[in-house]
């Protein structure tokens, strides 16, 4: 993919991120996890996927991936609106697993999916995004080991954004690098400049190609920075300095990409992003609360009798 296209996607992600924060401040969203600063890591990697056969496993801060994968953004942001935990987008059609709030939790799912794809010989590969903090979780280790033993087509994409809430990478990742862990599993590991969208894109494409060709899993660690707070209820002033934030703001992946593009491309992207933001904003504000009955839906393929009884009692208490 060309830089201009990646730029457009990054800019959309940035503008929607800003809009989500604004909506939160206006009281329309109960909470939000800003991804400002991580656009290159997310867009660059997600844009490398082949959506006809690959599948992606996000965490809770992967708006940029959703943008690059063409996921219904109103459906994606519905999670933050408090409408439905997993979002309202169709995970199967969009090739993006439901929004997942357990740090490290979805990582083994990518491994299982990759095994399934390998058994079916589809040529598909899985990618999973997780943070530097997530790398401490047992599940991430178990997943890398399984993937290494079975040589599965999966890319472990770590967005090392410097912080896990208030804990900096150096107090989180012993040894300092998640990519360096790969060698211990006999698999490829690569650190990339996470604010260089082309470099991320290239590294991810390479890893996906290797996966497809039976070359096994890869760990990619994209070194980037969460410019905003951990969430809209976080206060980074309690744990990091303005200077640090400033230094990273200067490495802004979007400004950096813009410098390499013609002014009209940049301007055109801005217009495009504004259009998308308007649509998404309108869509979000138009989004209605799910009907109360849905509390009882989807728990099983068919509701159990006990659940139907509970639903009936709930209904009666409403009518009373």
């Amino acid at each position, binding site marked *: 993919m060309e830089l201009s296209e990646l730029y457009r996607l990054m800019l959309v992600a940035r503008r929607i991120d800003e809009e989500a924060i604004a909506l939160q401040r206006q009281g329309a969203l109960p909470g939000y996890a800003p991804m400002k600063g991580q656009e290159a890591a997310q867009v660059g990697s997600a844009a490398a996927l082949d959506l006809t056969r690959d599948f992606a496993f996000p965490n809770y801060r992967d708006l940029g991936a959703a943008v690059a994968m063409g996921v219904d953004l109103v459906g994606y942001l519905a999670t933050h609106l408090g409408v439905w935990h997993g979002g309202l987008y169709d*995970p*199967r059609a969009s090739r993006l697993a439901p929004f997942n709030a357990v740090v490290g939790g979805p990582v083994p799912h*990518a491994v299982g999916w990759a095994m399934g794809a390998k058994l079916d010989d589809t040529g598909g590969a899985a990618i999973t995004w997780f943070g530097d903090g997530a790398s401490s979780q047992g599940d991430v280790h*178990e997943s890398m080991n399984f993937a290494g033993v079975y040589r599965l087509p999966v890319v472990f994409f770590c967005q090392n954004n410097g912080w896990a809430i208030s804990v900096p990478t150096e107090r989180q990742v012993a040894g300092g690098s998640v990519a360096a862990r790969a060698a211990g599993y006999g698999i490829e590991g690569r650190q990339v400049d996470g604010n260089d969208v082309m470099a991320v894109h290239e590294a991810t494409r390479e890893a996906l190609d290797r996966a497809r060709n039976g070359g096994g899993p890869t760990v990619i660690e994209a070194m980037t920075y969460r410019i905003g707070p951990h969430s809209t209820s976080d206060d980074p002033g309690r744990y990091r300095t303005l200077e640090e934030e400033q230094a990273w703001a200067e490495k802004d992946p979007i400004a950096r990409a813009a410098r390499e593009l013609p002014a009209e491309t940049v301007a055109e992207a801005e217009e495009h992003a504004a259009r998308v933001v308007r649509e998404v904003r309108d869509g979000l504000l138009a989004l209605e609360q799910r009907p109360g009955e849905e509390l009882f839906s989807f728990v099983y393929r068919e509701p159990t009798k006990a659940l139907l009884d509970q639903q009936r009692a709930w209904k009666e208490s409403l009518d009373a």
Partner: protein
Amino acid sequence: MPEYSLQQALNLALQHACEDDDRVLLFGEDVGRLGGVFRVTDGLQAKFGEERVFDTPLAESAIMGMAVGLAMAGWRPVPEIQFDGFSYPAIDQIVNQVARLHYRSRGTMPMPITLRLPSFGGIRAPEHHGESLEALFAHVPGLKVVSPSSPSEGYRLLRQAIADPDPVIFMEPKSRYWHKESFEPTDATDPVGTSRVVRQGKHATLVAWGAMVSRCLQVAELAAEDGVELEVLDLRWLKPIDTDGLAASVSRARRAVVVHEAPLTAGLGAEVATLITERCFGELKAPVQRVTGFDVPYPSGDLEDEYLPSIDRILTGVQTTLEYRRG
């Protein structure tokens, strides 16, 4: 009619499930080449190949997490966790992922996963090899939980669990693995969530599951010698629970004793007792008695028989309910 031990019946059910549906996958620690520490998967890797029946590294959380991903990719995973007490490392994946993905994905990602879990005590095993986790699992929305009490039940319920579109925790009573029964393995099954009366009686109902069912049958034999006719109800589905079946039995007998191996406090016996009381309050002649494991860690072999509900303790429970007089 052919005779099978529970272990053989389960093996056969797995074999038939693999034959009938080529999306079924069996995996876990030592289930492949070794055929499982209890030999429940014996011979299946040879039959279905290393892709469909395979060993995993030693990590229960990843086993369940991998099952989730396989289900998303359209497979029907039947993982094993080697022993009850080692499902704790996988609880996060089971509760936060397996049980919820169908809900979280608004029905677009079914999780037809059957977790085979050798369960309960009674074999003088090391620590963590004798645990009863049904109360934990039954509390989790999105899971189904079942435990067979005999080889024929084992065959039928395992086929049913694997065919079920929802995640099922299949608790195998390991002290019964070598117990035999003659039956024809057909796939005729009762609906999910139904119990069965394994002995009829009118003086009180004993409610049990897993290995405690046969013990309750022994109790009923003994009681019959004294003219006390006990009904024995094999609850088998621990989620969803057959409230109607419980109510039907207890409204006849008007007295009930629930028996389980797990510790008393917040055990599934409390749920069973409460369901019975909610439905049969006016008919009950005595509070539902609980005869269970004690509120202590599952003990070492020497003390195992003191811990498990013994025939004597169950009989005492029966006697208490029969002699109960409103205070």
